């Protein structure tokens, strides 16, 4: 009896675990799978010395002028924007009683840093509105500062275009900004861009898949419904190319997506999912050419104007705004627009 109970429990546990594993696999196929590489590194102004901060407000971490080892013997060490301010330190006898710093007003500011594509323009949105454009360096690193911000919950989004003008996904982080603090977010990692030389081809033809990411890292390209994972390495400007032989694919529609990987632990989420067709019946040839990527007024941006057009047609039919082709402009169309949002 005990044996049967054991067997039942073990089978059940493995079945459930298998089911959960399968469902997690299924969810990783969707682009919506969570892969937050970014984190709030420090909050300057909260009185706590986080990583990258020398001090925070009146909290000097027990440090003194003399203890800095910069030749000062006495004086008042203070803190300015989470860095030591030695203007009150002296090399002679103390002019006044020493003590904690503070008194400096810290501006409410957010600093976003991470990696995009070498030399790309990185666009930063605050609550969906374009507020800043900064340039990534040759190593794809970027840093953006959003100043004079009202305390509260904010959504900051980042997107960029690669050297072939292919847009990344819009990467969004939502967090609380506190008054008189500098919130530093690091580790933003835009997934690789992805493009195809064809969207419809015969079985056995080579499909050229290409994109851009950080220089000299691995890019994992996933082709599904039957999943094939190919790995390529980006060149010194982050560009990569994968000639994919479609002989292995069945006739019909397929999808493809890419993920950048510096190390197995440090990888981006998945970027854009593209679809292509293999076989004689090239039904999807011009399917996506009309109001592509929710750009309803076709100005190259997906922003408030497109949202207004969508609202105008909401609950009605409009060829352009009906992104999912269910004959009515509804919430899934809105969701598709939000996914492609550029501000």
């Amino acid at each position, binding site marked *: 009896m005990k044996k049967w109970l054991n067997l039942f429990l073990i089978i059940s546990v493995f079945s459930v675990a298998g089911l959960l594993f399968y469902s997690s696999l299924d969810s990783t196929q969707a682009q919506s799978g969570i892969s937050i590489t970014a*984190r709030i590194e420090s909050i300057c102004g909260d009185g706590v010395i986080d990583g990258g901060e020398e001090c925070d407000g009146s909290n000097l971490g027990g440090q003194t002028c003399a203890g800095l080892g910069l030749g000062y013997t006495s004086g008042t060490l203070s803190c300015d924007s989470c860095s030591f301010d030695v203007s009150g330190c002296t090399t002679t006898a103390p002019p006044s009683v020493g003590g904690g710093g503070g008194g400096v007003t810290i501006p409410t500011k957010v600093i976003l840093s991470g990696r995009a594509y070498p030399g790309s323009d990185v666009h930063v949105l605050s609550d969906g509105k374009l507020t800043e454009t900064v340039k990534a360096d040759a190593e794809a690193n970027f840093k953006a500062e959003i100043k004079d911000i009202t305390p509260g919950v904010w959504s900051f989004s980042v997107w960029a275009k690669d050297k072939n003008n292919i847009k990344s996904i819009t990467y969004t982080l939502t967090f609380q900004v506190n008054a008189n603090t500098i919130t530093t977010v690091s580790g933003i990692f835009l997934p690789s861009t992805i493009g195809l030389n064809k969207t419809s081809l015969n079985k056995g033809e080579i499909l050229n898949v290409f994109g851009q990411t950080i220089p000299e890292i691995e890019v994992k390209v996933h082709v599904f419904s039957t999943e094939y994972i190919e790995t390529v390495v980006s060149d010194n400007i982050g560009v990569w190319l994968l000639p994919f032989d479609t002989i292995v694919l069945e006739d019909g529609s397929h999808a493809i997506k890419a993920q950048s990987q510096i190390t197995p632990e440090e990888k981006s989420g998945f970027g854009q999912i593209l679809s292509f067709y293999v076989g004689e019946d090239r039904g999807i040839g011009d399917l996506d050419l009309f109001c592509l990527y929710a750009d309803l007024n076709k100005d190259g941006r997906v922003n408030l104007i497109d949202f207004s057009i969508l609202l105008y047609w909401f609950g009605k039919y409009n060829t352009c705004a009906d992104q999912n082709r269910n004959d009515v402009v509804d919430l899934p169309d809105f969701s598709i627009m939000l996914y492609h949002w550029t501000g």
Partner: protein
Amino acid sequence: MKKINLQFKIKSYYLLLLLILFGLPSAAFGAVLYFSSANNVYHEGDVFIVEARINIQDECINMVEADISFSQDVLEIVDFSKANSILSLWVSSPLISQETATISFAGGIPGGYCGIVPGDLSESNLIGKLVFKVKELSQTSIANVKFLENSRVLLNDGFGTPGKLEFKDASFTLLVGQSEDFKNEWQEQIETDLVPPELFEVEINKNPEMFENKYFIVFFTTDKQTGIDYYEVKEGKGEWIIAQSPYLLKDQNLQSIIKVKAVDQADNQVIIEYTPLRRQLTFLAIFLILCVIIFWWILKNIKKRNIQN
């Protein structure tokens, strides 16, 4: 003794297996819509805030559509605040109905929402704040606030795929008679809000697909303290009228200065003025014509003087 220990271990083993077996399926693989509040016990006449929040498990979302019901016999819905909501674009502004005891809304997050960012110590997962007032009671009552089954989230996957969703309802104990420390949580928030809504831009546009290709304006902003209450638009010397984006302009010749006012729940306001380019060009043209006339008049006078001399 050893036998007892062994039996205990075996029992623990089965217990663990059973926990895994029945515990794992209940581990959410989608989003969870839930409520939070400062207290669970209120008195007659108290005005309190119930926050609708979302927890994300394993998939990013970008749209929330929610229908919420409440115990109509003991609660009155007073207001809905969008302040500090993760939703920034609202397809349908909160529709409050005391008659049907429901609150409905749908909004989205450009670029999606993937949960609380590591390192963020606050709960940045607010959907909206519901403000309730406790009605007159004949006896101690239990009030329920719950998400209706037709509420949904859509994944940030570019396909508008519905996400898996769970609901957690909230219950409140309502006591007869007013308490000594009468609560009006909403009023407290309104009184401390002295900050106007965020500055914003007004854009003018026209599109063959909309308003028969006539000019319209678009605008939107947020308010981090109590939330935007309404917008008003004024064209030229016209009256302020309640409006929403997109707004079809009355002056299709674009000769009027357009003003858009955003007002928050605490009545703080910000006014944005927009001068259409065509109006600016008209003024520029008039200015240039005047300059030419003055220049011509000066030249004429100089010539006249030269001839006289």
